[in-house]
Every structure is written in C-alpha cells, then in structure tokens.
C-alpha cells in the first residue's frame, strides 16, 4: 500500500474540483483543482489578474462559480462551514460610521460567538486603545489590522488573507507578516493570496502558482531541486573573470549586466567551490551575490515555461 498517496480526510481542510469561472469574454478561473491540508500556510501566487481573488471569492461563496465544486472540512460549502473560517477579501470591508468595537460586535453576532472574544483579537492586532474610534478615522494599516482582528474572531480553523500587505508602509508590512507567522505557529491553516513573491516565501509552506486562471505549479517553498544557481559577480578585471568563470564545472550561461556578470550554474554547483576556483585563478572579486534559489526566480521560470 502506498502511504504517500494516502491522505486522512480529517487532515484536508479544503478540496476544490475543477472550479471554473467564466466571465463574458474571459475565463478568470479555469478547471482549478487543489487540496489544502490542515496546518499548512498555503500561498496563492500569481500576477495581477491571474484569478487569485476570484478563486478565493468562489471558495468563500461570494462569487458563483460557473462549474466545478469545492468542499470545506470534508463536509460541504454552506454558511455553517464559513463560520469556521476567518477571511478578508480585497481589503477591509466595514461599516464606515461604526466604531471598531461595534464592527467586530456585528461580526461576532453573525458568527454567533461570544462578545468577550472581541477584546482578545483587538489586543492581538494592537488596536485595543482605538476600539471606540470610528472605522473611517483609521489609517489604511489600522484598517487592515482590524480586518485581521475580525478574521481572528471566534478562533477560526482557517484564515484566508487576500493581499494583506497591499498599500501598507514597510513597518505595516513587517507588522502584518509577523502577525501571520505568529498565527501560523499556533497551527492554524492559512491561505494567503499575494503577488509579492518574497511575502509568500517568507511565510508560506506550500504554494500554488496561478496564471490566467490555471494552476501552473504547485509545490513546497523549500523545494529547489528544479532550479539553477545564479550568481551575480564583479571584479577589478572583468575580462579575466569572464574567461575564468566559463571553466568552472557546472557553468551554464552568463549575462552582462551594467557593472556585473550574472552567471548561471547547474544546481549541484557549490558556490564555495566557485569562490575558491576564482581565488586560485587570481581573480579579485569585488561583488559576489547568490541571487538564485529564491522563489522569485522559480516563479519567473515557471511563468516563462508556461507562455
């Protein structure tokens, strides 16, 4: 019996089956099937307009799919299941004239949860001191944090965040990321849609790349086997550098940048070996940067392959 392919149904949070959303002239989501396991931070990655928000809209029942279906917690896709999910879609949506507290009170009334939970989530996102201020007086970062607080109400099993750092300043971005990592450490399943690759790389375990509504890649963030090693180099003597570097085993290609050389090696090549080889050939290195092996490169590679 192949245990690798065997997945306990209790461990599956969401399963979609051939989801399709056809708008008049465009297929926003095209035959999309994927599975999300419990406790995973799942990244939905793709350029703007690739169908990320439409996909999230469908699994949250605010967008009616043209065909296909999905199932939450192995049970169904009614509002009963949605009460176990905390989600923000396309930014924070609240009643402008309500205070933060009243907005959360309303959410807890809908979820049927206890009012006492509001204080906890407001403290978690560091907004408790502003709880009696109206939502419309909040800055964008605070609005985004309030949305996360709202999603955290009733301690949901799954958290869905759509571009949670969109429009935030660097401090705001750092705060939100820390918050997500903290939440993930409590064992919650998180689905994160983003077009920011380093965001997904920093917080996600698993990711799915969408392109024009199709899943073009699904994998673990740590899997790097398929990618090559790319190094950016410069030297006092660029001609020498170029002639020497071509002789290193594993060399694939090079590209001239403004003041540097971008060199591609096979993924088995150890960059320490490269450095040593250059040193032995008396090439004086003034700049040495490993730029490959990150998600961005993988991502671009995947997108290129699927043109």
């Amino acid at each position, binding site marked *: 019996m192949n245990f690798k392919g065997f997945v306990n149904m209790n461990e599956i949070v969401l399963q979609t089956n051939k989801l399709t959303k056809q708008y008049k002239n465009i297929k926003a989501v095209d035959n999309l099937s994927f599975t999300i396991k419990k406790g995973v931070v799942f990244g939905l990655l793709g350029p703007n307009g690739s169908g990320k928000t439409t996909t999230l809209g469908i699994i949250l029942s605010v967008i009616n799919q043209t065909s296909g279906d999905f199932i939450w917690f192995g049970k169904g896709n009614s509002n009963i299941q949605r*009460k176990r999910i905390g989600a923000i879609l396309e930014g924070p949506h609240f009643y402008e004239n*309500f205070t933060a507290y009243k907005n959360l009170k309303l959410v807890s009334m809908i979820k049927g949860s206890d009012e006492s939970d509001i204080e906890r989530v407001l403290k978690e996102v560091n907004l408790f001191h502003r709880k009696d201020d109206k939502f419309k007086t909040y800055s964008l970062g605070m609005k985004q944090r309030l949305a996360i607080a709202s999603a955290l109400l009733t301690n949901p099993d799954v958290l869905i965040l759509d571009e949670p750092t969109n429009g935030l300043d660097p401090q705001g971005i750092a705060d939100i990321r820390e918050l997500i990592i903290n939440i993930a450490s409590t064992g919650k399943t998180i689905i994160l849609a983003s077009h920011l690759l380093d965001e997904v790389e920093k917080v996600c375990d698993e990711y799915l790349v969408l392109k024009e509504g199709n899943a073009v890649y699904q994998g673990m963030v740590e899997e790097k086997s398929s990618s090559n090693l790319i190094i950016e180099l410069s030297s006092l003597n660029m001609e020498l550098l170029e002639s020497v570097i071509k002789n290193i085993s594993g060399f694939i290609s090079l590209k001239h940048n403004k003041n540097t050389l971008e060199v591609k090696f096979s993924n088995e090549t150890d960059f320490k070996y490269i450095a040593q080889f250059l040193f032995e050939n008396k090439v004086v290195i003034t700049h040495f940067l490993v730029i490959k092996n990150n998600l961005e490169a993988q991502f671009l590679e995947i997108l290129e392959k699927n043109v």
Partner: protein
Amino acid sequence: MFRLLNIEFYKLRNSKYFWILLILFVLFLLSVPVFVNLFIGTVRKSQVTEQGRTIVNYVSFFYTKDLWHNLTYIYKLGTVLLAFITMISITNEYSYKTVKQNVIDGLSRKEFLLSKIYMIVFLSLFVTLLVGIIGIATGLLYSESGSFLEVVSNIKYLGYYFLYIFTFLLFSLFIGNLIKKSGIAIAFMIFYLIMIEPIIVAITTYWMEIEWLSSFYPVNGINNLIVNPFARYFFKDLNRFTVTPIFVSIFYIILYIYLTYKVLKNRDL
C-alpha cells in the same frame, strides 16, 4: 428569526440616517392631526364666505366614521421616508461591500435577505401600531362623539395601511437591491412615483382606454387600498372598496421577495 432581526436592528440603530428619517416620520405622524385641527379651527373662526364654511363643516375630518380613512390616506404621504430607510439600508451594504463581508463571515444570502425582510415586517408593524395609537388619541380628543367603541369602529383601515406600508417597503428593498447605489435608487424611486407610473397610467387609461389595468400597477394597485376619502365630501359617491387591492398587494409581496432573492442569489458580491 430573532438573531437575524437583532443583527439588522444593530446595523440600523448605529446609523444616523435611520434615526433622522424615523424621527422625521414620527414628527410627520404627530403633526397631521394637530395641523388639521388648527386649520379647521382657524377657518371656522374666520370670516370666510358662507360657502367656504359649509365646506369645512362638511369635511368633518375627525368624524369618527371617516377618521381612520382620512388619517391613513394622509399618512401614506410619509411612506417615502420609510422607503428611504429601507433603500439606504440595502444600498449601504453594497457601497461598503459589507454584504460581501457578511456572507464571508457566515451569513447565507438567504439569511441576509431575511434579516432585511424581518426588519421591514417589524418596521411596518411598529408604524401601524403608532398610527393606531395616534388615531385613537385623535378620535378621543377631537371627534364629536368621543366614545371609544365609535372611534375604533372603522379601524380596518389600519390593516390596509399595514399592507400598504409593507408592500411599498418590499418594493423599495427590491429597487435598492437591484440598483445598489443609494443616490440612483432614491432618484429612480422618486422618478417612478411622479413620472413613470403616472404616465403609464395615463396612457393605458385615457389613450388605450383600458381602465381596469391601472389597478394592477405596482404603486397604483396598492394605492387603491386607501383611496382618496375626500372625494366623498364633494361627490357623495366614493368608489366602493373592493378586495382587488388586497390581492394585488399579496401578489406583489410574493413577487418582490422572490425577485429580490433571485437577484441576490445569482449575483457575484
């Protein structure tokens, strides 16, 4: 049911427009008997022509038999304020995208619509009760006879009034949900009331000469629940009330609920 009503009521009672429009409406209700009484008194005391005095004496607004009909007829004018409450309450959900968030947070679309409908039921009942209390108080204070039994003798108009309000507010909910933008929805409603339907009525009644058809239009049909009572003072011949408007109302109640649900269900939020 109470959970949904509670949710909707929480939204309303924290909204300024709701209180402003509701207070305006209550003031309107209260002011009508007071002003009518003041007006009649002034005319009686003044040296108007004999003919004018006869008319005023004749139009016994507070005459117990006519009181409910007269009062509810004038009160129909205030319905537009309640219609605004209904339309803003639904269009705001679209402009703040809170309908979407409500669904994400765990309300089904059906529950969302039910919360609005329950509120309309509640608001219609509340307003009817208020009109009932004002009517009884007015009857006891101003009418000539003043016995309680006589005052409530024609209270069936309160029932028609409830049906009128309820149907009209469901119509407003349907328009608000369909149009989604509060300004456009309100403008459309006003335009429909004063332009579109009167023109259609004129065309079918006077030009095409199909008089009965106008009893089935959305607004005209329910207007017939409480026809103009003042005509009786001049022509002594009031079109007899038929049961048709009751059926027309019930038909539209079902239609509006059905169509609003259809639109909400099939729409991407």
